[in-house]
């Protein structure tokens, strides 16, 4: 790890100001992604701002009937919250499908959204990677791509976003609340929060550098059957090859978001009209325009079959 200085922020505004003041600084929450990357010198901040202990660890009801989840709420607490288990089952299920008990006890809502890709070449510091070192090229293209993206990819990057939680939040139309050093607050719909790689895969979200996440809000519950199905190489403690977050209503309509296929949680609202016609039609519309590689073309079939199984469970 490179040497760094450390401070504890006392308020969200102070955290944002601190990061704005020092160009090479980063927030640290659970630390489970950032410290991993710092050990590998993929992240090399000169200053860390500890945002634990800002009192952002509560889950509150909103006046509209939804939930406001503090940025520092741990993944375990969020999955165990009675309102989440009852009204947002797809979110509880997605959280529980991710990482391990020890990691979920540390991982925070904001940190989970902002965790970086698991592309093996991003981790292999001897390889070119446009995300790690802008302009250096992409070692994954033409390399081993089994785990990588099939849709929304670019010639600069074909990585996927690894979060399970974010996929469920996409299906639930969550909104990310932020504050900046100058005090301006805004609400970013989850659909616009993560970006596609384009020519600048190192820019992963809509956030400014001095922007601090204070909370994620969920709209009022929408009912329906909630299912999260994650397909991976081992039964637990592994990232998704493909995952499906679905909320299906009695009449067969519903919402579907996919993990493991793109640089962001993948949802195509217009394609959801096909859901009552079945998984084949729906997935063809959701993954319309997919450009898989030879190694990961299986993900397209796997996504369709996973959706078929999810729809069967939701109707059963």
């Amino acid at each position, binding site marked *: 790890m490179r040497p*760094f200085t450390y401070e504890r922020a006392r308020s969200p505004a102070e955290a944002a100001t601190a990061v704005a003041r020092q160009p090479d600084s980063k927030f640290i929450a659970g*630390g*489970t992604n950032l410290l991993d990357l710092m050990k590998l010198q993929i992240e090399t901040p000169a200053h860390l701002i500890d945002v634990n202990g800002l009192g952002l660890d509560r889950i509150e009801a909103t006046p509209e009937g939804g939930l406001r989840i503090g940025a520092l709420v741990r993944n375990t607490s969020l999955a*165990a919250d009675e309102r989440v288990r009852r009204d947002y089952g797809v979110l509880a299920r997605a959280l*529980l499908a991710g990482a391990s*008990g*020890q990691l979920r006890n*540390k991982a925070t809502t904001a940190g989970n959204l902002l965790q970086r890709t698991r592309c093996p070449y991003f981790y292999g510091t001897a390889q070119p990677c446009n995300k790690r070192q802008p302009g250096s090229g992409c070692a994954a293209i033409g390399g081993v791509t089994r785990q990588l993206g099939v849709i929304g990819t670019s010639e600069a990057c074909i990585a996927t976003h690894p979060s399970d939680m974010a996929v469920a939040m996409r299906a639930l139309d969550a909104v990310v609340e932020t504050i900046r050093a100058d005090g301006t607050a805004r609400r970013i719909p989850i659909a616009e929060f993560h970006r596609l790689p384009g020519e600048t895969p190192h820019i992963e979200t809509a956030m400014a550098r001095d922007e601090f996440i204070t909370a994620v809000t969920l709209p009022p519950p929408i009912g329906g059957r909630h299912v999260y199905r994650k397909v991976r190489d081992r039964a637990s403690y592994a990232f998704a090859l493909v995952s499906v977050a679905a909320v299906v209503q009695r009449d067969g309509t519903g919402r579907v978001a996919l993990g493991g296929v793109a640089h962001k949680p993948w949802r195509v609202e217009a394609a959801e009209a096909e859901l009552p016609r079945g998984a084949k039609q729906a997935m063809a519309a959701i993954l319309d325009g997919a450009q898989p590689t030879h190694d990961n073309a299986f993900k397209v079939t796997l996504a369709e079959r996973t959706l078929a199984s999810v729809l069967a469970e939701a109707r059963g």
Partner: protein
Amino acid sequence: MRVNGDVRAIQLDTRTTLLDALREHLQLTGSKKGCDHGQCGACTVMVNGQRIYSCLTLAVMHDGDAITTIEGLGQPGNLHPMQAAFVRHDGYQCGYCTPGQICASVAALEEIKAGVPSHVTADLMAMPQVTAEELRERMSGNICRCGAYSNIVDAITEVAGRQA
């Protein structure tokens, strides 16, 4: 920090992980370093009663926290019930993963009691039960190279049964 009940004041480089602080500075070498990247569970300790990986957190972030390591659970002659059950059931071969397995399993039983669901809990609204399937899922964050898994599940099941 309060480590196994004793207040310990130490001056550290900011880069020091909690694991390195315990092992290198406080000479508590029971917690093991397997991967140092959150992938194996050998470094599992409890912070304020919750299990975490001590390799993926900085010691400076735990100013004032209560840390429990395997040494704090029990000592030879005065073993924690989980330690004794691991011995009885041969829940290890080489023993390298064992301190992490034991800390993780003690905390996992607390999580079940507190009603925290898991990936395999069928009904999210029901109290989770201690079943072999639940224990295997909840202990998936602890890898055992020797493959002592089935005896580990037996040891935890016995302790859970005695608590109930």
